[in-house]
C-alpha cells in the first residue's frame, strides 16, 4: 500500500477497534451489572436453585445431651449435608431436620444457632469469598440420653408421653412421646407418619392436649389451703357421694371410708368434695387458680406447644374435677406440680443448657426468672407432704375422661426423693384405665 493510503486505512482500522472495544466494554458492564447490582435480587428468587443447594450444604451444628453425648450431627455426603441422629429414640425434644419436610423440636427451636446465624459481616465476607458453606454452632440440651432411651423403652406399645424434670429449675431431662419415629428415616417414612392415626409426629409432651381430670387435685388443694378455705385434716362429711360426668359415675376409690379428711381425698381420689370448692371459687376464682399454676398459658419454651383453651372454665363444677374445657399438656401439668416441691414458685422449663458462640466458646443458658408464686411455700409443702408415699416417691395418679366417648386416660405424677424432691415425672397414657401401668413407668423412671 502507498503511505497515504496506509494512513487512511489505519484510521479506519482504529475506528473499527474503537467500535469493537466499545462492544466488549458493554458486555463487561453488563456482567458487572448482574454480578454486583442484581446479585442479591437474583439470589433470592424462587427459581434460583442455588439457594436450595446452599441450604443443602449447610453444615448444621451438633445437638448434644447434657453429658455431651451426640444426639444429632451433619455429615457431608457428595457435597450435601446429611443429618444423622445416632440415638434413634432421641425423641421429640431433638426433633428432626429435613430439607423437604422442615424442622421440629430443638432442630426447629435452635435453628438459627444450628445454622450459624446470625453471622457477622466479616465472617460472612470471608466465607463467601472462599465459597464455604454456612456452618453452625453446637447446642447442648438438658436432656439425658440414657434416661430418654429408658423412657422410650418403657412407653413401647403405649400411646402417651413421659416427662422428667429436675427441680426446681425446670430443666427437661426426658421428653418422650409414643408412638415416635426414627428421625434418620423421616424423609422415607414421612407420608406414612402423617397418615398414621396415632400421630407419631406429635410431641405429646408439649402439644398433647389432655383433660386433667383428678390430676388437678393437689393443685386445687394447695390453692384452697393458700386461700384459707380448708384445713388439710378437716373432716369431710359424705365425701363419697357420686359425681356424674358424661354419663359416667365418679366415686372415691373402692374401700374409701365414709368420713375422710381433705388430705385423704388425695389417697382415695374422691371427686365430690371439690365440687364444694367450685361453689366457693366460681368461674372467676377457678380461672385465677388455673392461671396461677400456668395451666392457661403456653409454657415459656421454644418448642412448639399447643394453644391453651380460650375459656378454661365454662362450668366450675366440671372444671374443678378437670373435665371442663381446660386441657393441659404433660409439660404444663408437670410445671404446675413442680410448684409443690419448689416453695410455691412456678418455674419456666428449659431445654438448652448451653450453646456455642461464633468462636466456638460455650455460653451457658441464662437462668429464667421465676414466673410466679401461685401458693405460699407452706401450703405447697403441706400438700406435698400429703401426697401418698411409695418407696421415697411422693406420687399422685388419676384418671380422666377424655371427650364424650368416655374413654379414659391415666395420669401419673411422681416426685423424688420424698423429703426434698429433685426429680419430677409426668406420665400420661391414652385410652388406658389402668393406673398401674402409668405408675410402673413413672416409678421406673424415677428409680433410675
Amino acid at each position, binding site marked *: 500500500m502507498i503511505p497515504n493510503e496506509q494512513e487512511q486505512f*489505519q484510521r479506519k482500522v482504529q475506528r*473499527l*477497534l474503537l467500535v469493537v472495544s466499545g462492544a*466488549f466494554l458493554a458486555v463487561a458492564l453488563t456482567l458487572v451489572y*448482574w*454480578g454486583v447490582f442484581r446479585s442479591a435480587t*437474583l439470589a433470592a428468587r424462587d427459581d434460583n436453585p*442455588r439457594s436450595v443447594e446452599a441450604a443443602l450444604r449447610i453444615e448444621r451444628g451438633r445437638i448434644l445431651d447434657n453429658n455431651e453425648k451426640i444426639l444429632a450431627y451433619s455429615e457431608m455426603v457428595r457435597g450435601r449435608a446429611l443429618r444423622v441422629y445416632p440415638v434413634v429414640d432421641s425423641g421429640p425434644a431433638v426433633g428432626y431436620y429435613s430439607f423437604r419436610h422442615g424442622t421440629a423440636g430443638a432442630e426447629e427451636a435452635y435453628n438459627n444457632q444450628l445454622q450459624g446465624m446470625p453471622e457477622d459481616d466479616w465472617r460472612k465476607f470471608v466465607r463467601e*469469598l472462599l*465459597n464455604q458453606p454456612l456452618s453452625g454452632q453446637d447446642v447442648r440440651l438438658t436432656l439425658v440420653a440414657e434416661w430418654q432411651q429408658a423412657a422410650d423403652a418403657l412407653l413401647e406399645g403405649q400411646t402417651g408421653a413421659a416427662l422428667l424434670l429436675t427441680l426446681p429449675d425446670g430443666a427437661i431431662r426426658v421428653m418422650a412421646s409414643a408412638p415416635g419415629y426414627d428421625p434418620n428415616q423421616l424423609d422415607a417414612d414421612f407420608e406414612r407418619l402423617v397418615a398414621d392415626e396415632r400421630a407419631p409426629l406429635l410431641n405429646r409432651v408439649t402439644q398433647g392436649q389432655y383433660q386433667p381430670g383428678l390430676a388437678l387435685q393437689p393443685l386445687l388443694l394447695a390453692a384452697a389451703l393458700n386461700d384459707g378455705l380448708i384445713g388439710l385434716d378437716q373432716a369431710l362429711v359424705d365425701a363419697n357421694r357420686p359425681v356424674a360426668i358424661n354419663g359416667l359415675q365418679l366415686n372415691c376409690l373402692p374401700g374409701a371410708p365414709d368420713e375422710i379428711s381433705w388430705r385423704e381425698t388425695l389417697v382415695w381420689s374422691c371427686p365430690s368434695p371439690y365440687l364444694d370448692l367450685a361453689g366457693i371459687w366460681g368461674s372467676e376464682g377457678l380461672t385465677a387458680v388455673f392461671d396461677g399454676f400456668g395451666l392457661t398459658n403456653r409454657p415459656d419454651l421454644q418448642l412448639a406447644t399447643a394453644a391453651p383453651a380460650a375459656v378454661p372454665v365454662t362450668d366450675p363444677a366440671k372444671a374443678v374435677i378437670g373435665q371442663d374445657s381446660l386441657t393441659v399438656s404433660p409439660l404444663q401439668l408437670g410445671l404446675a406440680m413442680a410448684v409443690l416441691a419448689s416453695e410455691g414458685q412456678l418455674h419456666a422449663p428449659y431445654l438448652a443448657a448451653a450453646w456455642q458462640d461464633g468462636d466456638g466458646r460455650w455460653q451457658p443458658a441464662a437462668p429464667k426468672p421465676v414466673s410466679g408464686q401461685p401458693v405460699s411455700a407452706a401450703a405447697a409443702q403441706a400438700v406435698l407432704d400429703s401426697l401418698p408415699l411409695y418407696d421415697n416417691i411422693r406420687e399422685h395418679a388419676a384418671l380422666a375422661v377424655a371427650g364424650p366417648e368416655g374413654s379414659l386416660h391415666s395420669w401419673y405424677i411422681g416426685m423424688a426423693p420424698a423429703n426434698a424432691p429433685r426429680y419430677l415425672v409426668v406420665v400420661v397414657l391414652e385410652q388406658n384405665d389402668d393406673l398401674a401401668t402409668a405408675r410402673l413407668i413413672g416409678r421406673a423412671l424415677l428409680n433410675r
Partner: protein
Amino acid sequence: MILLNWFTIEDRDWRELLLIILAALFVGSGSLALSLARLGTIAWQHLWAPLVWLALLLGAHSLLRYYRINRDPFLLPLVGLLTGWGLIMLDRLAANFLARQVVWLLLAMAVMLFIAIVPRDLRFLRRYRYTWLFGGLLLLAATLLFGVNPSGFGATLWLKLPFMGQIFFQPSELLKLLLVVFLASYFDERQQLLKLSRRRGWLATMPYLAPLLLMWGFCFILLVWQQDLGAAALFFILFLALLYLATGDGRYLIGGFFMLLLAGVFGYYAYDVVALRVDAWLNPWPDADNRAYQIVQSLHALAAGGLVGSGIGQGFPNYIPVVHSDFVFAAIAEEFGLVGGLGLIACFGLLAYRGLRIAALARRPFHAYLATGIVILFSVQSLMIMGGVTKLLPLTGVTLPFVSYGGSSLLIAGVMSGLLLHLSANGIE
C-alpha cells in the same frame, strides 16, 4: 527481579514463552483445583488433558520460534489460554466430551501451525476466491438437504462425515472462513472502483450497492431456511465491517444496521424460534420456568459468581441446559467470578487489538482485509454469545470461539489463528 526483567524483555520469543507459562499456570492450577474439588485428591483424569494441551502449546511455540521469527507474540498464548480454559471447563461441565475435544484441539493446532508455517504466501486464497465461495455455498446447500443434528433434535446444521463414525461437521463454520477469504479478495479488487464511484454522486453508487443487497439477500435466505439468526447476523456484520474498511463510508454501517434490524423484525414475526428468543431477551422473567429457562438460569449463574466466583467445580452452572457449548461464559462467570468473566472479555479484546494491529501494519490490502475479517469474526461471535448470555443481546446459537465445546468451531478457529500468525509474520509474497 528476574520476573520483572522478563516482563520488560524485548525479545518476542521469550515474551511468548513467558505468556505461555502464565497461561499454563492458570490452566494447571484450574485443573488441580477441579481435581481437588471433585475427588479431594490430585487425579490423572483431570490432568491428562491440560498436559496434552501444554505439550501442544510448547510444541507450537518451538516451531514458530524457528520458522516464524516475526510473528505476533501474543497470538499463541491467547489461543492457548482460551483453549486451555475451555478444556478445564469442559472437563468440569461435560467430561464425557473431553477426549473428543482434545482430538479436535490436536487437529486445530496442527492446522494452525500448517497454515502459519507451510504456505510461502497466501496468493492461492485470493486467486481461487470464487472456488472457495461456491465450495462453501455447496456445502451449505448440502446441509440444507442432508443436514442432521447430533443431539437428535433442533436445527439441522451438521453434516455427518462418511466413514468416520460419530463425527459431525458444521459447514457454516467453514463458510465463515471462506466468506472472509472471498470478501477480502473481493474488496481488495473493488476498493478502487468503490472509491471512485463515491466521487460521482450518490446515484452512481447504486450499482456498487448491489453486493450489499446481494449479501443481505444471502443472509436473509440463510435466516429463512435455517432460522439461524446468529450465523446470518454474523455474516452480515462481517460484510458491513469490510465494506466500511473498503469505502470509509459510515453510511453503509448505519444503513446496514437498519437492514439487519429489518431482517430481525421479519424473523420475529415469521419464525417462532426467532420470536421466542427475542421475547426471552426482552423479558425473560414471566416465562422463567419454561421457555426462558435457559437465559434465566444463566443470569442466576452470573449473579452467583460474586467477585472471585465459587471456584471451579464448586458452583452450580449445570442447571443451565447445554452449558458446555453456548453458555460456557456463564459457567466461567459463576466459578471464576467477575474477575474471571472480565478477564475472558479482556482476552477477546486483546485478540481483537492484536489482530487489528496486524491489519493496520499489513503491506497488502488483501492481507489487511483478511486480518480484519478474522478479527471481526472472532469478536462479533464472542460478543454475540457473551452478550446473549448476559441478556445484553438476544440469544443466538453461536459458540464462544476456542472456549466452547465444538469440533468444527475449534478447527476453523485454528485455521483463522494460523492465518493471523502467518499475516503477522509478514510472510513473503
